[in-house]
């Protein structure tokens, strides 16, 4: 892939909720194999932004382009099929299924096993199932949940559930991963490990947009950072550049956020 073309372009997107602008004229890009952070105080519109990109919410105006092609207006499951995976701020794992099954479900995007084929076990289906199992197991190993593979997702502690959701998102072999506050509820050690994992993923060529409240994590692992406030972009650039901007500091003043 051409290193010059952004994998994700958010082009002057806006979203109004009945007159209240949640996001206003927001533009930024994510380059291939880049870890881009998206930060901002509570209510700045970060989650809305992800919802707009993936199609969970409809845009009021503006455009979103993935690998150069317009994806504005596509519903959630269709953007997912384009190799964009995401995690959720309020976890959406499948509580009654095992960890392994959760991640296997994540393979749907590329496996696309039809109902009839799968049920009557046509030979092609068997091979696919084996492949799904292998991919799922390897993602579970990567994320470090091997010992929990057969545990019920609902029984895991929050930190592991977050990892599970990421593993499930990775099982879809995405080219772009959108993470919505994956570190919420994690302790210091878990956070550090998460950071290392994410860096390794971009090392392998995955592009990541990371929404995060925790400044330490974002500052330490992001290649670049976009700062939002009140739905508008305050700043965009390298972590070192952004952290010292007056506007960014004052946006966070009075905000009770901490490590």
């Amino acid at each position, binding site marked *: 892939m051409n290193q010059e073309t952004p994998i994700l372009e958010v082009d002057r997107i806006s979203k109004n909720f009945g007159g209240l602008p949640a996001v206003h004229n927001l533009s930024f890009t994510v380059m291939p194999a880049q870890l881009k952070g998206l930060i901002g105080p509570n209510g700045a519109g970060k989650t809305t932004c992800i919802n707009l990109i993936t199609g969970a919410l409809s845009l009021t105006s503006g455009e979103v382009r993935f690998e150069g092609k317009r994806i504005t207006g596509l519903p959630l499951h269709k953007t997912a099929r384009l190799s964009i995976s*995401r995690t*959720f701020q309020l976890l959406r*794992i499948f509580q009654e299924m*095992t960890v392994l099954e959760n991640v296997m479900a994540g393979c749907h*995007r590329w496996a696309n096993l039809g109902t009839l084929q*799968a049920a009557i076990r046509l030979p092609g289906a068997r091979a696919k199932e084996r492949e799904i199992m292998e991919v799922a197991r390897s993602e579970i190993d990567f994320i470090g949940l091997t010992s929990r593979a057969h545990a*019920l997702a609902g*029984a895991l502690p929050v930190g592991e559930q977050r990892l599970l959701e990421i593993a499930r998102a990775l099982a879809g072999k995405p080219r772009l991963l959108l993470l919505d506050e994956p570190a919420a509820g994690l302790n210091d050690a878990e956070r550090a490990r998460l950071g290392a994992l994410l860096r390794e993923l971009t090392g392998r060529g995955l592009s990541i947009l990371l929404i995060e409240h925790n400044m330490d994590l974002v500052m330490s692992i992001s290649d670049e950072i976009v700062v939002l406030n009140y739905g508008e972009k305050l700043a965009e650039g390298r972590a070192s550049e952004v952290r010292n901007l007056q506007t960014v500091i004052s946006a966070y003043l009075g905000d009770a956020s901490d490590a």
Partner: protein
Amino acid sequence: MCHAKGHHQGIGKVKRSHLIGALIGIVFVGTIPLFIRDEYTLGFLVLAGIVSLVVTGLNMLVGHAGQLSLGHGGFYAIGAYVSTLLTIKFGFTPLPALIIAAIVTGLVALVLGIPLLKMLTQFHLAVATLIFVMLINALLIVGGPWTGGFTGIQGQPPFSVGPILFEGDVANYYLVWGVVFLGILFAAGLSNSQAGRILRAIQGDETGAQSLGIDVAWEKVKVFVLSAIYASVAGTLLAHYTGSVTPAQFGVGPSLEFMVMVFLGGKGSVIGGVVGGSFIKLLPQVTEFMKNYRLLVDGLILTSVLLFVPQGIVGLFRKIWDRRSGGQSPAEETSLNGDGGHPPVASEPVGGQP
């Protein structure tokens, strides 16, 4: 292998214990007619098989995809009436009639399913499917020349495939339970595969499932149609067995009864259909005065099961089995024995939008 009993040996491969259980089941079911010659009881066993077929299909919708349908009695009716009309009025032979009836039912389910499964909530779906079965029932009553009104249509010949005629209780017993076996095979295959995982994912969290690229609306419609076809085939077999169809057989009561069977047997369990269906159908055999009390008993059973044994009979056995085999964390896998009902966890509270 040093696994404890609850683990998958491999996706697609059947667990040894299940295989043994299945063989025992087949032998058991297959030899019953040798011991029970009493026509009356045998007749009930045939009916038990027929409803088990419906419920096995219904369980894919309710247990796996997590969608409620109170109206499957409607598809049951369509299968019965359409095949009867085709054989009696248009001279079709039973097998093609069965297939055509299934296709017609499938189409109705498709047309109905598309708007219905987009409905806002479980509740809307439940009410809509309830209205559906009442509508079908009302149509049967006023159908006049087509449906024979209250008296229905008589003279349906026994089922036959080419020269093989299935007449009488024993023949129908094997026919019906043979079909049930096939139905369970398919349902088990579905459950243990990626397709089953997708359905359970939809039940787990719809938005989460969508984020994986699953077209939730379409998958729901697919399993709706599939379960409708099961009901249709069962209805056709019923018509051939009893020789006639009347609206009284296909009302709200029987339709709701299917749901009772789903939950009694074990929601989400592949053999739950057989367990629930047989239990309810054979209950009148055990207690004499059932005629007037049937509705009451159904209601009490449903309410009690939901309150006290939400995982159903199969789920209950599963729990006991798990506890005895060394107390592994229960329900490590879903597959054949289903994950039954939900514990009262706050993750999916009753609250929220209508």
